[in-house]
């Protein structure tokens, strides 16, 4: 497509609209992010490498990205389940549950963190039953995953829900007329149709989890090399007036996140290759 499509556009003003979009994105996103790169550039290459590859920093990458990935996978699975139940079944209290899904969006993350920590700690409502059987959640990496699942839940549900609602019942009927069982219909017909939406939700949940700070620090325990997340490490550096070091780590996070999201977007594009 031509990059200017004046001819067949209903709304006039391609030039001002694009101009404003670029200006706005620059102001809100690009300029702050480039400041990050400029600040990082005050470090020499060796200092940069030292700052971003210290053992404690490397461990924090593992914790952050590992836990985010695990949380996003769990959310992708249970998010589809929740969306399915909300779309396909009618039951009392459905509206309430539908509203409940958005709560992690609205709740201050610190409140969520404190609540989760108190529930899963060794004398909390759930922790007191789990701890005796050897499952420690609060103040371990597992706790980080739980917090990330909590804050990421709405993304998959809200992206998959509209797709499921629009799904034509006849397609399923066609599949069963052709001899497909329920599982075959789900795996071969429904899942591929939902996949682009699931991947979008997955990417959003993952990105949110990588950037999450407030709810995690209360439940993580923040033990260096074990349960310390990268955002916390950045705050720690800032508190020590090591601005360049903090921005260096931020830069690495930014680049890695960007690459991962890019991969997911490509995957998503592939998964909807049929919709042209």
């Amino acid at each position, binding site marked *: 497509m031509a990059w200017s499509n004046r001819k067949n556009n209903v709304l006039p003003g391609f030039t001002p609209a694009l101009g404003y979009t670029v200006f706005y994105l620059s102001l809100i996103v690009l300029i702050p992010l480039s400041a990050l790169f400029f600040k990082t550039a005050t470090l020499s290459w060796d200092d940069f490498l030292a700052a971003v590859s210290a053992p404690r920093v490397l461990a924090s990458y593992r914790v952050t990205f590992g836990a985010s990935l695990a949380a996003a996978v769990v959310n992708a699975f249970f998010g589809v389940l929740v969306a399915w139940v909300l779309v396909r079944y009618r039951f009392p209290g459905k509206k309430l549950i539908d509203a409940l899904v958005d709560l992690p969006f609205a709740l201050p993350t610190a409140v969520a963190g404190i609540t989760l920590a108190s529930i899963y700690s060794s004398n909390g409502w759930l922790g007191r039953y789990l701890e005796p059987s050897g499952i420690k959640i609060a103040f371990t990496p597992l706790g980080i995953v739980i917090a990330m699942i909590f804050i990421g839940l709405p993304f998959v549900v809200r992206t998959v829900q509209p797709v499921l609602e629009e799904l*034509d019942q*006849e*397609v399923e*009927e*066609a*599949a*069963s*007329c*052709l*001899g*497909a*069982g329920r599982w*075959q219909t789900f795996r*071969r*017909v429904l899942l*591929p*149709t939902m996949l682009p939406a699931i991947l979008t939700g997955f990417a959003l949940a993952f990105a949110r989890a990588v950037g999450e700070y407030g709810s995690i620090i209360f439940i993580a325990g923040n033990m260096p090399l074990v349960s310390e997340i990268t955002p916390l490490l950045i705050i720690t550096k800032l508190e020590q007036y090591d601005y360049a070091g903090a921005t260096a780590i931020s830069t690495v996070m930014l680049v890695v996140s960007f690459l991962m999201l890019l991969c997911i977007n490509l995957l998503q594009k592939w998964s909807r*290759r*049929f*919709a*042209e």
Partner: protein
Amino acid sequence: MSIDIEAVSKTFGSFSALSDVSLKVPSGELVALLGPSGSGKTSLLRIIAGLETPDSGRILFDGVEATNRQVKDRQVGFVFQHYALFRHMTVFDNIAFGLTVKPKKERPGKQEIKDKVHSLLKLIQLEQLADRYPGQLSGGQRQRVALARALAVEPQVLLLDEPFGALDAKVRVELRRWLRRLHDEIHVTSVFVTHDQEEALEVADRIVVMNQGQIEQQGTPSEVYDRPATPFVYDFLGNVNLFKGRVHEGTAQMGGIKLSSPENASANDAPAVGYVRSHDIAIERDSSEGALKAEVRYLLSVGPLVRVDLSLPDGGPIEVDLPRDEADKLGLKVGDQVFARPRKMRVFVDDYQI
């Protein structure tokens, strides 16, 4: 495979979609279920497919009870009005779907599936589009793919729900002729639903006219068209003009015309309605026995026909379809006084309102 429908009823809430419907579809026949929307034709088709369960009554395939058989075990091919293709699969994969979901033991080999799909693509004349996605096809092409997909599993029964309803007029005519030829080749027992009388008359071996959840009449297209059993069937198949009058012991008196009506021999001076198709009326310049005086109100050329709107002295309208050359010969103009002679009239005693 033959289908027997025995006393099937179905209600949706307070709406009665089918009431006590019985129908036999002999093996190898192409049957049309014809009726207006809400007449229960689609419900009946879905019950045969197993997509709905009847409230009462039985469905038998080849004389064997199949009322509670699962959809996937019924071996029916179903074609939907809006195609219901799997849009994330190519044309090839769509057609192959039914073969690839078979249990391991019955599933044909890869090459066998490939050969089968290609022979079906040839049948629907879309061989070069095997790798396209449904989104890249036209409506007519999509419906042919849907048909090939249904045929791939070699169904015992083919069910089509308004298969041409979403297509434009020209494609619709092409595709229904193609379906007729296809059926002449493969002879699978087929039932298709339509509200288009022309489609039913052209394609089907037998027509079942439905109205308000019941069967009004069934028969060959010419039986149903030439000898409608009820006023509803008369009205539904083609344009009709209504004449009000009375009938007494086999003789009807309709707006100044006297004619014999042997079906109503037992009638005793009962109010009656005469039905005349718009192409069964002749227009004459001169007065004669059995013709009604009328005035030309409106003339409209519709392709090979000329539609003439007449009005009787009492104000009643008559619609006449004349062949073009006959209309030219008469040289009709709006306002002309003419005489309309019904060539064929069917009289029903007026206990029935349409």
